[in-house]
């Protein structure tokens, strides 16, 4: 065994801890995913009822959630469009000013991140409300528009996030590159576009992505600034408050799937870049074979994953769980009925105990007994004895206890059986039945 795990004694413990940790991280997600496919109207795994994809349909049919989604997407795009340039400008300004001023400015610009979102939300309403009054706008004006206010409120702190991303990237920028560009004849504008912007490219991408996510998932600020409207998050929150159903799990499944696909494409992209950067691509077997090279290309992986997702969505939309659920309802009804019958039986038992002399009258072939004729003497008849098969058996056991069910099909009744045999003994004592077959 390796010395390190022995000396620390943590091998098993470390594995156990890791497993627990992963269970802690991913357990809720896994359970949530499973509940999305259970037909139970409350999100749960047990009892498992039917595999269903109906909750996805229910989710899409939810008008409030879907209009919230489109509002959220609109606001998200607006926030990205405003806060990324604002954050970039702030970061550039900070990198240009003197160090002392920079510290002061930095603290000021970072405040919106530290202030609680609730405070930002309320102050946004108050601020723009007074601006609206200043300009004499009425309550239908833009300063009382939920989308505008949410945009304004979210940009205040998301621009600061974006600025942090840009500052981190700018710290790694070599300012002599700009000087070199100027020296080689570039105008300041050209130096910015051709040297600084390409360098900031990845940061612009991550800032935009982060801004979109931050805007999309924001609740504290938005719940105030959206006023009477709804974003996806606020719609979701109010839905949970009113009582949840598995369509939320279905939403979670969609979000998880989108995230996973994005992460896998990103990982493929990173690995490819790494391979190309280190120059190992030419030596890698994956890259010399055209098929695997295409398969490991981010676009290839994206196409494959999206194709899989589309196939799953199609299969899911074709899946019909109505039969299963109808069965289930039938079963439930049966269980109810059985319970009802048992109760009736018990009541009758009690009655019988009170009147022991009273014998049970011979049962008609339409057997109302909850035991489905199990106590019917005919049930004791040997298999060869054809029992009258009642055409309509009301038994909840579906005729399972019907004596005729026990009759082997190979043994037809030797004597013509009257269609309605009045004997409770099912012709068991009929002498003809003992006759050997001619």
């Amino acid at each position: 065994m390796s010395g390190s795990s022995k000396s620390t004694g943590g091998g098993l413990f470390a594995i156990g801890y890791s497993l627990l940790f992963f269970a802690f991280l991913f357990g809720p997600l896994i359970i949530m995913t499973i509940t999305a496919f259970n037909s139970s109207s409350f999100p749960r795994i047990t009892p498992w009822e039917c595999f269903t994809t109906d909750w996805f349909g229910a989710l899409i049919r939810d008008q409030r959630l879907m209009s919230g989604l489109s509002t959220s997407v609109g606001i998200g795009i607006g926030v990205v469009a405003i806060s990324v340039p604002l954050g970039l400008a702030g970061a550039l300004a900070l990198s240009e000013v003197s160090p002392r001023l920079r510290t002061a400015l930095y603290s000021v610009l970072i405040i919106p991140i530290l202030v609680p979102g609730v405070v930002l939300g309320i102050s946004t309403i108050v601020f723009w409300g007074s601006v609206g009054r200043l300009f004499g706008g009425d309550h239908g004006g833009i300063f009382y528009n939920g989308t505008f206010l949410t945009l304004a409120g979210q940009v205040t702190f998301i621009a600061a996030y974006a600025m942090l991303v840009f500052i981190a990237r700018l710290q790694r920028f070599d300012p002599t590159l700009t000087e070199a560009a100027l020296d080689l004849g570039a105008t300041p504008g050209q130096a910015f576009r051709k040297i600084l912007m390409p360098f900031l490219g990845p940061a612009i991408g991550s800032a935009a992505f982060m801004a979109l996510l931050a805007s999309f998932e924001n609740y504290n600020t938005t719940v105030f600034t959206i006023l009477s409207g709804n974003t996806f998050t606020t719609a979701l929150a109010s839905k949970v408050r009113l009582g949840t159903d598995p369509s939320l799990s279905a939403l979670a499944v969609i979000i998880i799937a989108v995230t996973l696909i994005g992460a896998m494409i990103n990982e493929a992209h990173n690995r490819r870049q790494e391979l190309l950067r280190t120059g190992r691509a030419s030596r890698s077997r994956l890259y010399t074979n055209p098929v695997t090279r295409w398969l490991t290309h981010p676009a290839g992986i994206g196409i494959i994953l999206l194709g899989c997702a589309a196939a799953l969505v199609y299969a899911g939309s074709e899946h019909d769980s109505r039969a299963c659920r109808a069965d289930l309802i039938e079963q439930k009804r049966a269980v109810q009925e059985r319970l009802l019958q048992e109760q009736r039986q018990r009541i009758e038992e009690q009655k019988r105990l009170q009147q022991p002399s009273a014998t049970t009258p011979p049962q008609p072939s339409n057997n109302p007994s909850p035991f489905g004729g199990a106590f019917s003497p005919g049930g004791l008849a040997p298999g060869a004895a054809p029992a009258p098969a009642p055409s309509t058996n009301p038994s909840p056991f579906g005729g399972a206890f019907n004596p005729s069910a026990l009759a082997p099909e190979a043994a037809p009744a030797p004597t013509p059986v009257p269609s309605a045999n009045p004997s409770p003994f099912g012709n068991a004592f009929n002498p003809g039945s003992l006759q050997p077959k001619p």
Partner: protein
Amino acid sequence: MTSNKDVVLDHVSIRFGAYTAVDNAFLTIKGGEFFSFLGPSGCGKTTLLRCVSGFVDPTEGRVLIGGKDMRDVSPNKRPTALIFQNLALFPLMSVAENIAFPLEVRGVGRKERRKRADELLDMIALPGTGDKKVHELSGGQRQRVAIARALAVEPDILLLDEPLSALDLKLRQHMRTELRAIQQRVGLTFIYITHDQGEALTMSDRVAVMNTGVIEQVDAPEAVYNRPKTAFVASFVGENNALSGKIASAESGYAALETPAGLLHGVAAGGRHYKPGDACILFVRPERLMLARDNDSVNRIVGTLEKEEFEGNIRIAHVRIGNAMIRISRVNDGLSAPLAPGENVTLAFSPDNATVLPVSSMAEVDA
């Protein structure tokens, strides 16, 4: 006669607050000259270079290029190209894109740019590397790409800020001859900044030695080495032995100095007139000292050999004379035997090989 490749520093001073980076620099760099600024780090040579390229404005004085005052001319409008210490190649561009960048910002078409880049790559002996990324090149190759990029602008003056300092010794020596060859081929004015005297002496037509913002001497490499004008130049450029003392007598270009090692004679540098009693330093280079065999030399120093270092082509003997240590280097010519430590030796040198300089401006030098 002025060419448009002349650079004139007309009493240039550059100050940052109370700190003076460059103090009253006045010199003319002729067109087509390989001119070096040599000095220890922090002496203001880089500031001076940035002033010529336009990133720093002179606090006083003027910079003239081709006879034109460069004040209010921004860096991208000046006929200069600067090669940065870290080369400042654009990491996101290919080699060819780097070289063609100056053409790109001047609106030259893509095909023409590529053609010019390939020509320049041929010139720096890196044909076919145009599509490589910068980080795929070795240090020396990057160096040459930086030069090619600077030459793509067709500048009148090429400014080089310690471009060889990041290279290893062998490559540095190779690049010295290469740079010199390129300069002679393109016929541009090269202004070269370095703290490495070897670079300055081997490549330059003229060298300006700078110390704490002041240009101490402007001369051809030989003159800077053989006839230093200040104590700083004497001790900074090359190895030198310094013996301080007071002037005993001075006449007809020579001075006699009373030192702990005895009365020594040397050239009064730059025809200076010393008075008896002036505090001075006598400099004599290790290779100009000889082991004395006879007693007819004017300058004789007697000391004890501490140790002798063997450096292959030469031996360096460390001789203790009172509190001072004197170094003497001897060519390993196969005739001279090594000296034994503790041996008493007598050193001699001709007065023409020694320089007597005033003490001032001797600060911050480890001789």
